[in-house]
């Protein structure tokens, strides 16, 4: 029992010496200079899309056709908030003089949503903040045709725009 007590005391004494030594070193430190630092985190934004081409195989009667390609969009940014917008142009027939397919006939849905949004003007479809891992979104596109549309190949452009709000 006495030996145990002595051992405990010795351990305590050792700890005390160690802690005192440590504090002595700390107090012995004298600040002699300092350096002002400005670390600059540069703003960045990366937008990637899985494909840059969409096609619709409109082979049956007029109606709604969903594109064969699903566009996967990934946005990564260190701005405080950011927004992604989509806009489409009219689809122009290959032959001159044939009426365009208006842009609003194109619509899109995000991920597995069944709700398609018309691609009229800039449509806000995605917003993000920092401190958030980028998650890819899947965009499905739909084209609605009518009996008045002339058969043929129509071409157009879907523009995805990105806005930083630093």
């Amino acid at each position, binding site marked *: 029992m006495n030996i145990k007590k002595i051992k405990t005391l010795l351990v305590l004494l050792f700890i005390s010496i160690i802690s005192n030594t440590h504090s002595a*070193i700390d107090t*012995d*430190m*004298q*600040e*002699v*200079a*300092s*350096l*002002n*630092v*400005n*670390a*600059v*985190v*540069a*703003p*960045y934004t990366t937008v990637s899309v899985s494909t840059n081409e969409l096609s619709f195989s409109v082979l049956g009667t007029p109606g709604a056709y969903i594109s064969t390609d699903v566009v996967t969009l990934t946005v*990564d940014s*260190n*701005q*405080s908030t950011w927004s992604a917008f989509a806009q489409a142009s009219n689809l122009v027939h290959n032959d001159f003089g044939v009426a365009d397919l208006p842009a609003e006939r194109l619509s899109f849905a995000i991920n597995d949503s069944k709700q398609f949004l018309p691609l009229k003007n800039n449509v806000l479809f995605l917003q993000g903040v*920092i*401190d*958030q*891992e980028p998650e890819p979104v899947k965009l499905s596109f739909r084209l609605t045709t009518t009996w008045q549309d002339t058969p043929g190949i129509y071409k157009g452009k879907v523009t995805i725009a990105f806005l930083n709000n*630093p």
Partner: protein
Amino acid sequence: MTRLLKRVTSKIFRLLCTWLVLFSSQVFSKVVVFPVTGLNLTTYPDNVSQGLVSFLPDASETTPVYYQLSSFKVNGSDVDKSKLKLKNYYTNGFSSLDRYRAMLSGKEKSNSVVTMFEFKPTWYDVPGVYSGLLTANINANERINSYKLEPLPEVPIQVIVSPKTSLSLNPAQFSIATSSFNTPIIREVALSFASNKPRWSLYISAENLNNSSDKQVANDRVYVRIKDSLNPKPWVSLARPAEILSGQATPPSDIATLEFMVNSKRLDKAGNYLGRIKFFVANK
């Protein structure tokens, strides 16, 4: 008979005069030093420290008086006595006290002689209390026994050399873009260091860097290393004070160039993050 009487009277008179001169010397001949505490100086490396001491002889002090440093020590070790210098009417500029120097010529006729003492420590002189004693060329016993004069006072010397360390950084501030280890963006800072400490270690630590909206780049992402173009050293995180250099007493000299890098994280918000990198010196 009258002649004999005259001769005897004359001899007695001369003897009486001599006795009177000796007697008066024995009683009055002395030197007083002001301040009575001696010379006290406080200084630091490369700084000239000067102090005045007055030697006031009385009118009967007609012998030249010389003083030298009989001892000069710091922390029990001898110090080069020539480091303490003096200048007065009898010296040709400042003269070292490792040999006897005239303080009084014996012709002052009660006029004091002011002596200026000077001590200029180098960076290699250890900090501490330098103690010495100025003693005269004729020791007390000799003056008393042979010349029947008052002993000359000893003059205590105390010079306090303060510890001093200086570090200058070039540049004193920098702006650095965050980057990765694969393609680090590096800022260099040159260190000019001086210390009179016999052994020292230089430590460096960083604060967390903060932006205006309380976002933070933690100090564990601030890295440093000593520049070595041929053999680049590993980066050291400044999350904790890191010892980067150590050495002995040195005058101001370029001791190293440091390289800094701040590691980026993809989720760091764009902007400016401000903070300080601190340098510490510890005795070994």
